[in-house]
């Protein structure tokens, strides 16, 4: 079965050179090869097998996750994992004709309406922050992510508003600003005293509670 999948894609873009070898190793999880040249490869992979592919990629010598890009497209959110294969880190086991500095972009579609994908952060720690970022900015959901808290947007930003979506206008759709801090009595130094109350430096942790 895997042979068939590879040959159909070969009709469009032949799998050549080192990049071709890498994409061939991913087998039938590759749905479509969009670019296969000396230093660049772009392929679309099956969403259900994201984690499996990520593990395979990380296991290759000299391979590391550079970052991921999320793009909103018609059918959902395209997540592009950019893998970089360095010759240097591969050591003596490197393939003789392996070029240095190969960038392989693996596209995965998080289809509407769920916009969900399996998180690769458990397998690849480098993906942890970037998946949180895509969740904030684009609303992509990552299943089984170890720590899906807000990363990039501020504390007062409303849930469900994603600024990198195409229908978000960066000026017109800005959410209301966070409330101002309560204005102090300007002439007096009261405000400073007020704030000082809360400050305990190097005291025992029970100090504050005993007063209550």
């Amino acid at each position, binding site marked *: 079965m895997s042979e068939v999948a590879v040959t159909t894609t070969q009709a469009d873009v032949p799998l050549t050179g080192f990049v071709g070898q890498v994409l061939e190793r991913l087998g039938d999880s590759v749905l479509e090869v969009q670019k296969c040249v000396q230093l660049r490869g772009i392929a679309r992979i099956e969403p259900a097998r994201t984690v499996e592919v990520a593990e395979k990629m990380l296991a290759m010598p000299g391979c590391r996750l*550079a*970052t991921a890009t999320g*793009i909103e497209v018609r059918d959902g959110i395209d997540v592009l994992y950019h893998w970089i294969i360095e010759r240097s880190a591969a050591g003596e086991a490197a393939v003789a004709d392996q070029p240095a500095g190969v960038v392989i972009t693996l596209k995965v579609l998080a289809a509407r309406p769920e916009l969900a994908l399996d998180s690769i952060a458990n397998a690849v720690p*480098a993906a942890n922050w970037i998946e949180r970022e895509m969740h904030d900015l684009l609303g992509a959901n990552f299943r089984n992510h170890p720590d899906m808290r807000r990363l990039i947007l501020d504390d007062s930003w409303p849930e469900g508003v994603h600024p*990198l979506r195409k229908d978000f206008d960066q000026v017109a759709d800005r959410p209301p600003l966070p409330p101002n801090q309560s204005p102090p009595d300007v002439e007096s130094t009261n405000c400073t005293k007020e704030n000082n109350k809360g400050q305990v*430096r190097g005291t025992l*942790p029970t100090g*504050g509670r005993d007063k209550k």
Partner: protein
Amino acid sequence: MSHKTVVNIGPFHPLQEEAEFFQLYVDGETVVDMDVRISYNHRGIEKLDESKTFDQVPFVVERVCGICSASHPLAYIQAVEDIAHVDMPERALYLRTIVNELERIHSHMLWVGLAGHFLGYNTVFMWAWKYREPVMDVLEVATGSRVTYANCKIGGVRRDMTDEQLRTIDRSCAELVGPLEMLTNAVLDDPVLHARLKNVGILTPADVKAYGALGPTARGSGVPIDVRRDEPYAAYDRVDWKVITAPGGDVFGKAVVRLLECFEAVKITRQCCDYLLKNPGGEIDAKVEAIPPGEGVGRVEAPRGETFHYVRSDGSNRPTRHKVRAPSFNNVPTFKASCIGLQIPDVAITLASVDPCYSCTERMCTIVDAETHKPMYNFAELVRLSQQKTERMKKEW
């Protein structure tokens, strides 16, 4: 169960110039876990770029980070050139290299100064910054501004350098070698610094691969990742230089890498000046008519590591998507691997050792008691603790 305390560092603290918020979970003096909250510097540049034309974007990305203000535009421009297949004139490649290497020298010296300050060696701080000034002057001579260079454009560079400017750059770089040697020897020979920095905040090569650490952070762990060699851009394949690595992965290794890289940067810059003086004249930019539809990747070795830009074009005059990934975005999460198990005074220097850049990463710190949520330390006090530890060690020596 022992008593765990949360130490908050930030968001505004006097030494790291930028706002970020760390929470250290400490048991006694030992850090057992940590957490970072960013967003203080998030401006929304990726969305902003979608409303700018291809030629306007370099000026925006230049302001992603002030210390990498030559690397970010170059990475973006290389991504666009990846789409448009531009043949660059030779002279432009060398001119790009000069500005990027001068930036590396000033950034590394800045770091050495700040690291000295964190450890209580204010003399190092003052000296490093004093000898950094000529580099800033040279950059001003060459580009018109001390920090924002506006040097690159799609297809080449915006300004040529005259022979006189090139000779000034060459002379200043030559004069820099003496002070750099002095600084390097001062750091490498000091027994107190050895005791403070060796075996502190170790990042193993396996962690480097897992977290995708970059630049001096990776090279300090003996992992030779360097975009300048792996995928040569500008004129790096035309000049003689070598990738600096240090074994160990501790703070000391990262300091050594940065100091020695300054010498390499001086070497590269002087070779470029030499070439340009011997080959005067010539085009400095190639004509770029339109950007065809497609997607491109641009990679540049910034002072902190690989800067990664992804641009997608639909054939119009604006990018449909522009992704910026600064090196600190990958380097900052390595704190989770390197800081755990450390003593609180060692955390300041370990946090500083990756030279974090939050305007890049886009993204606060005080020490808070876990039960009462009262602040106990701020970053200034952490630095004070760190400086006191150095004092103690000095006496022991």
